């Protein structure tokens, strides 16, 4: 589709690209239907965002200060938006809605990584989890914007702008806490140690991703590893803390078999929809 409107001097470099119109929110009514494999990939990406949004929402009214309540709530809302895009697109392959996928799948059917399922812990641990996840998704979406699948590319383009300030938020707190008191250093370091074993799972090439990566639809997770580790190591060293030496946690990647947290998260997230199917207000 060609650009039909003229540019004015008000236009900036970020405004000029007029692409094809994509409709993820009511994608089932449009021609954008995911293949079964692409849908399984979108589900995996969406589940990570959905579970982390649920975890972060728990901080509202519990953060160290009001501004952080709002910051973590805002970040959770962004992630929920990303999850809705991915789940809606995934559902287009199977005639399901975002709600069907969010509320009526069991523990075994979710594909989220264990990192986002980890308990919030103290503020240091939540920031450590945010740091790992935002640095990972930033690298991922930077590549996914070039996906051969135009819907996935559009979602990545939208999400990237927001993940950009999510990683800034986490990095600023890491530097602040790492350069703070003995207590803040200790707790931030403990936070990093507790979530680090779950980093490796993000780089596992679990099907259908490798197949889709060959078709340039997906980003091969293992191809992100070096870039993410380099950037994480750099910011952690800058904060004066130590890059954890622990190896990846044992377990079947993204199966949920070894995450005792997932069931508890789903129980809270799904209880209303399951007890009162079709409830509206």
């Amino acid at each position, binding site marked *: 589709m060609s650009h039909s409107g003229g540019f004015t001097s008000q236009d900036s470099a*970020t405004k000029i690209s007029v692409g094809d*119109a994509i409709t993820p929110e009511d994608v089932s009514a449009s021609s954008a239907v995911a293949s079964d494999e692409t849908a399984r990939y979108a589900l995996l990406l969406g589940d990570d965002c959905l579970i982390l949004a649920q975890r972060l929402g728990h901080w509202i009214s519990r953060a160290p200060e009001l501004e952080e309540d709002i910051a973590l709530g805002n970040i959770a809302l962004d992630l*929920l938006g990303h999850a809705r895009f991915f789940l809606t697109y995934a559902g287009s392959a199977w005639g399901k809605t975002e709600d069907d996928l969010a509320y009526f799948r069991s523990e075994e059917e979710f594909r989220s990584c264990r990192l986002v399922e980890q308990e919030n812990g103290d503020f240091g641990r939540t920031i450590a989890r945010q740091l790992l996840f935002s640095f990972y998704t930033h690298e991922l979406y930077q590549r996914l914007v070039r996906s051969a699948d135009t819907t996935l590319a559009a979602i990545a383009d939208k999400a990237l702008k927001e993940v950009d300030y999510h990683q800034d938020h986490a990095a600023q707190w890491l530097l602040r806490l790492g350069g703070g008191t003995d207590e803040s250093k200790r707790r931030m370091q403990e936070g990093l140690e507790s979530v680090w074993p779950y980093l490796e799972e993000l780089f596992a090439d679990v099907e259908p991703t490798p197949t889709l990566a060959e078709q340039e639809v997906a980003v091969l997770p293992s191809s992100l590893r070096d870039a993410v580790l380099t950037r994480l190591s750099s910011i952690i060293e800058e904060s004066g803390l130590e890059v954890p030496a622990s190896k990846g946690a044992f377990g079947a990647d993204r199966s949920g078999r070894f995450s005792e947290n997932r069931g508890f998260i789903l129980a809270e997230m799904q209880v209303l929809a399951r007890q009162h199917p079709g409830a509206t207000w």
Partner: protein
Amino acid sequence: MSTVEHRPLTPNGIRPEEPADAAVWDAAAQVTDPEIPVLTIADLGILRAAGATPEGGVVVITPTYSGCPAMDTITADVTAALREAGYGTARVDTVLTPSWTTDWMTEDGKRKLREYGITPPSGNAPARGGPVRVGLSVKCPRCDSLDTKELARFGSTACKALYQCQTCLEPFDYFKVL
């Protein structure tokens, strides 16, 4: 892809020239943002396209932030505005590309925002991958002082940050650059 009778709609945020399409645009363009009622969706730059169909009208909008809870309300309000304007059926499509930045906000919209007491975005959104991360000064909407400081990067809605003026000491909302 949004289409009207096999006619693709270009989501470029420009009022269509075809009179029938322009009438649909005008009906939708008066809908205001539920959280910032002085701004219409055209001022905000989230109204992307409009087209007439034999039965009614189709309107294309885009979200500001992915999780913006106002989108559902805006969709309902646009549908109601079209019905009120006499369109039998009204469809609202959501598009993600080109993704919204604060550069899509009109100059008129920025002026209205300032008068409402919210400082509009200072300068343009950074180009992707650009090296520059410094921001322009944020002006106090009450006394025009540039001596202001950020209190919190996240504010009462996803699109705003909380600032304080060092001159008149008043806190204020800033519609941050995205």
